[in-house]
């Protein structure tokens, strides 16, 4: 019980892991909009070319945790890197702590090993950070990391396959969300039953125009009707579309830290 309370206390005291809103998450306001976008683009291109996911996180502090523990929690939550390939790496900077860490996924531990990561931290990034050149340091550090990872033969990045069939199926999640959102609005305006009926009708029509099959459209319409009828407070679930998803990569504490 005591241990449980202790764990609970620790959980409260910890800095929460920020949501993965992009490849670069800056909570300190250090990067300008152009710098942010530039880094984001570089990392996106790298993933498209090599398949490996990299991310950057800037926080004011990780206290009371050491940066190693915090970085691992970030890694476990974000799941950067492809599933099974585990080729993700995260650069975490705790600005007020004057500490940084490169957290390396299992799949990159061979090429971006501890010694290499440490060199990037202390020879490439730290000297720039000491001069207050945060963007330059991050940019140079990422650049070096990408060059190192380029030397590792990784599975080729998956190509998206556009096709008529694929597109319809890609539309499905969007349709579902539209139905949920639209349904809850209609329900609020027209009342429970009328709103559900309207949503069912709209979804059925959209499905009919998209898929062309009347039976499927009727089914979709009926489903939407019942979902809206039953749905309670579905309005809190969605919080905008994140521009980035972790691929399911795993981490085991590899990498290196440094201070400036």
């Amino acid at each position: 019980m005591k241990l449980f309370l202790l764990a609970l206390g620790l959980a409260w005291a910890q800095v929460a892991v920020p949501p993965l809103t992009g490849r670069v998450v800056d909570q300190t306001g250090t990067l300008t909009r152009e710098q942010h976008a530039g880094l984001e683009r570089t990392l996106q291109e790298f993933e498209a070319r090599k398949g490996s996911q990299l991310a950057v996180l800037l926080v004011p502090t990780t206290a009371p945790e050491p940066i190693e523990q915090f970085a691992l929690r970030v890694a476990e939550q974000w799941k950067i890197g492809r599933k099974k390939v585990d080729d993700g790496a995260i650069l975490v900077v705790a600005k007020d702590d004057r500490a940084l860490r490169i957290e390396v996924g299992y799949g990159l531990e061979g090429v971006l090993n501890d010694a290499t990561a440490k060199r990037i931290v202390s020879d490439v990034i730290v000297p720039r950070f000491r001069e207050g050149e945060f963007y330059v340091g991050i940019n140079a550090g990422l650049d070096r990391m990408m060059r190192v990872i380029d030397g590792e033969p990784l599975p080729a990045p998956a190509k998206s396959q556009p096709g008529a069939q694929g597109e319809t199926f890609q539309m499905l999640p969007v349709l579902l969300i539209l139905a949920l959102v639209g349904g809850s609005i209609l329900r609020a305006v027209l009342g429970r039953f009328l709103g559900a009926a309207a949503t069912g009708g709209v979804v059925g029509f959209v499905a009919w125009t998209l898929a062309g099959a009347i039976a499927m459209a009727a089914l979709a319409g009926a489903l939407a009707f019942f979902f809206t009828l039953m749905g309670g407070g579905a309005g809190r679930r969605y919080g905008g579309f994140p521009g980035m998803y972790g691929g399911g990569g795993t981490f085991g504490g590899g990498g290196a830290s440094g201070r400036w």
Partner: protein
Amino acid sequence: MRRSWIALSLLVLLLSGCGYNTLQTADEQIKSAWSEVLNQYQRRADLVPNLVETVKAFATQEREVFTRVTEARARVGSIQATPELVDNPEAFAKFQAAQGELAGALSRLLVVAENYPQLKSDANFRDLQAQLEGTENRIAVARNRYIKAVQDYNVTVRSFPSNLTAMVFGFKTKPNFTVENEREIGKAPKVDFGKK
């Protein structure tokens, strides 16, 4: 014939409903978490000879420190670190103590290294030190994951109704890393080379 089928499916339902599968899964998770712990301890032990050699080249007179590290390394190596170690609390404690001793000896070695500026700037030493730091961190991670796995398992073994299943099939609670050991072993040999 038909009755035996019904009895069999009932048994299956009963077993899956009373935590047998959960116990099996949790047990397997402990095993894999434990082998990761062993793996990382082994990685640290493998670093020792190289590290000692490198420090020796610069700090010849620190004989006592080298002996301590080498002896601790030998003691760690002499313990058969099998996965079954987990089921034997006594051997587990002994293993823990040996690893703790090695951690202590290594941190002494790094403190000693502080006094030799030439050693500190040696590229080989810096790489080894980065590897040691990384390995200590991996050990901490592996240990935490093991602790969590054992907690999950022990809760299942103790709570109703899975405790009955555990009793019937002989699942016992497993030893975990204790807080005293945690403090002793958790001390990573950390030396800050960033400044000065």
